[in-house]
């Protein structure tokens, strides 16, 4: 069974800082990493393959040529194959156009049993590409998966986290799931994996290689447009409460009582 993991290369937000004077993001020297949620997706795919004792894990990304580095990292963790979807025509895509292009990539990869995505990307935070991709692939999906209970007889049973607990959902394969941090701890790459990944060929598929309508890709295919980006006001003044613990608690309690 082919398991496809979709991953996105994102700026490492642990390193993003706000310039207090201009109130803008300082990105200088910020490294690019695999979207953290996608790491769980890769790990889960590898675990499923290991437990099945057969199959192939393919990692798929849409992005600029530099995104190849993230695919290589996934290979060094143990993924079997990587494909990059990259073309100027794919740039500026919103979640619908991204899912459209990814769906075309998945179609070209051939038969698959499962697509795994991270819950969301930490730069855009939309959490929309997963379900949108499922729709465009015409397969069932489950979001917020915190555990895969079983995978057999062409069915997968997963636990999906809800606001007040969880649901157990059975999906007929092929299907798509998006996973949470809770599901596993991603492995580190191995040295042998890194050496293999360094040599691996990563095909780059552009619009000519995929069965796509250019008008539905990238910016042209994106119904939504960003019209403005701004930094939220940060004029917050912190009122420090002084004194002994008892005194501090007394003042805070009286302030809290005003609010609640």
């Amino acid at each position, binding site marked *: 069974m082919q398991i496809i993991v979709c991953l996105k290369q994102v*700026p490492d*937000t642990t390193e*993003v*800082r706000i310039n207090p004077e*201009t109130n*803008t*993001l*300082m*990105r*200088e020297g910020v490294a690019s990493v695999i979207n953290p949620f996608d790491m769980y997706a890769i790990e889960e795919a590898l675990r499923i393959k290991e437990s099945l004792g057969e199959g192939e894990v393919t990692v798929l990304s849409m992005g*600029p*040529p530099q995104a190849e580095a993230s695919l290589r990292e996934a290979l060094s963790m143990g993924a079997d194959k990587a494909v990059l979807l990259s073309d*100027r025509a794919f*740039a*500026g895509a919103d979640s619908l156009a991204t*899912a459209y292009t990814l769906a075309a990539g998945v179609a070209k990869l051939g038969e698959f049993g499962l697509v795994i995505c991270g819950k969301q990307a930490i730069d855009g*935070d*939309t959490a*929309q590409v997963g*379900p*949108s991709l499922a*729709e*465009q692939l015409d*397969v069932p999906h*489950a*979001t*917020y998966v915190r555990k895969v209970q079983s995978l057999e007889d062409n069915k997968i*049973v997963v636990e999906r986290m*809800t*606001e007040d*607990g969880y649901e157990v*959902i059975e*999906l007929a394969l092929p*299907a798509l799931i998006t996973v949470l941090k*809770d599901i596993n701890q991603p492995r580190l790459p191995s040295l042998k994996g890194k050496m293999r990944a360094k040599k691996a060929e990563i095909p780059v598929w552009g619009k000519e290689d995929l069965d796509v309508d250019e008008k539905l890709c*990238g*910016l*042209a295919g994106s*119904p*939504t*447009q*960003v*019209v*403005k*980006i*701004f930094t*939220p006001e*940060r004029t*917050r*003044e*912190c009122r*420090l*409460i002084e004194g002994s*613990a008892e005194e*501090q608690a007394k003042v805070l*309690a009286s*302030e*809290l009582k005003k*609010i*609640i």
Partner: protein
Amino acid sequence: MGGIKVDLDLCTGCSVCADHCPFGAIEVKDDKAVITDICTICGACIDSCSFGALSREAEEAASPVPDSSGVWVFAEQIGGAIAPVVYELLGEARKLAESTGSEVGAVLFGSSMQDAANDLIAHGADRVYLLDDANFADYHDELYAAALADLIQEEKPEIMLLGATTIGRSLAPRVAARVGTGLTADCTGLAVNPETGLLEQTRPAFGGNIMATIICPRHRPQMATVRPKVFQAAPKDPARKGEIVNLKSPEVALRSRLLERVREQAENVNLDEADIIVAGGRGLADEKGFKLLSELAEALGGAVGASRAAVDAGWISYPHQVGQTGKTVSPKLYIACGISGAIQHLAGMQSAETIVAINKNPDAPIFQVAHYGIVGDVFEVIPALIRELK
């Protein structure tokens, strides 16, 4: 295709735009700005350029915008109870409807939901599209997506709002893809631009460090999921009148099914709906620290949250985690105890109305977002606070 254009005569190569680009998509080569492929055409650079060298390229001839009318709300229910965010959506939908001169519609799927439908009318819906069917009692991605997409294609609303809940964020992208329209996630601001008539949807990105305003100019409906607890709930007016339209169940070949729905006993874990959250981090030292925190939460009637450090240390379970890899919350009151305030944590809670920070280290970044700060030992301050509250 539209994009950002650099006027080479005006560009001085000062690289201010490159610094302002949230996506790192601008490079300066040979003293001129170059827009690279990762540009999302967000326009942040245009405002940053003092020389007017950057502009949006003209769009191709716009295709006609489909006819549509009405501001709709998806009335999510769990176990027959309407989710609180729905009333907030209705409140916001009324304002939008008034500014566009249209009606508010509510879409309700469930079983034996007649009373709930009337309740939606009392809270501002002019028309409730009700699908009352035992198969729809519990949320089901495929069933709900099919029914909602069919209805949208039939009735053509102009605006469709859903709560940015577990259900809303699963259902909305599937429906948007099926009807082929745009969708904006997790909005915290909505307004209709009086000139263009377009819905301007504002949402945080990069963990709340920047805000983006998004439009959906040529596709309908303009769809958005909206973060709970951001907008005021609509007031109830039992005298309000409205129409209930009964819908038929769609024919769908299902490929998934719900086997079980489990509510976890822990009452203090529903962070999304909590008005008060008391959260703990590394400074709580161990599980016992969280016991103390639970007492404080109980005294305040709030839920318990945690930083990633505390969850990773195994002191509390993952559903309590607030921040980038956990939940994003906007309660009325957030009390951060022994949390230093890493940027990923701030991303999940800085939109709280009032933030209180208790931390030993006066230089902890959490104090930069806090309204009230106590520099002190959590193990002294919390017990004293519990005594004061009692």
